């Protein structure tokens, strides 16, 4: 099967390759979407935990100061 004939695929090359191209686009797209979603979630959670930690620290400071004052 020469390379040229391989791409020609008996005149129907266009349809075969477009369908395989669509196939690869969909599969790779699925994979990238999952990766992208994971990074977004992790970034979001990290920000939230940092936020939460700072709020807890503030509380512990205020309770600490109130105990001292009380």
């Amino acid at each position: 099967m020469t390379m040229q004939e391989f791409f020609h695929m008996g005149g129907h090359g266009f349809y075969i390759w477009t369908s395989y191209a669509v196939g690869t686009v969909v599969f790779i797209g699925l994979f990238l979407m999952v990766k992208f979603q994971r990074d977004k979630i992790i970034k979001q959670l990290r920000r939230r935990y940092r936020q939460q930690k700072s709020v807890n620290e503030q509380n512990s400071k205020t309770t600490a100061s109130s105990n001292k004052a009380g």
Partner: protein
Amino acid sequence: MKNENGDENNNQQTDSQRFVPRTILTVTNLGIRRSERWLFRDLNFELKSGEVIQVVGENGAGKTSLLRSLCGLLPYARGEAKWAEIDESECLPLFLGHLPAVKPELTVFENLKFHPIAGEFATESQIEAAIEEVQLGFYLDTQARYLSAGQVRRVGLARLLIAQTPCWILDEPFTSLDVDGCHWLEGKIDDFAKNGGCVLLTSHQSIHLPTPPKLLELSNAEQFTC
């Protein structure tokens, strides 16, 4: 509306207890979650006949969610709420929600006539008596959309008089009621409790009953859940 002390005692003896005195509802470490945020956890309380419990807590503490989950509208995430077996004569607890549950295009009479209470429909005489009691006799045949919010609330409350239920669950029953409406409702709650019924209610306005209601504090379990 407020009967003197003397009359109150004999009222109790003569009037045979309508409901057999027992604990109607036992709640063991109940927890409700609203999309990953715990409204409250490990709530324990009992509702015995003859008791009035007022659920207090600031907005968003889950007062309405508690009432709705007790009567099965909202699945609770943890714990258990067990209702005592209700025999034939009585019926399921009557739940009056935030909304008055009155159809604007039906008349006052039709609103009460067509709404089943515990599986059957009230008789004509019961409805008329309830409407008289709620001082809406004049509006018997006017469509509910012409009534004011307070009057619509009274139509909703008229259902309390029809229902043969040992337990009332009232969510903000006093909203949009005028002064003597509140008095009337307080009197009704008090009589109902005296007759052995139990009431679980939430209210923003302060309620002054002869016997002050037990307070059920809903502290926000987790203040800073993310």
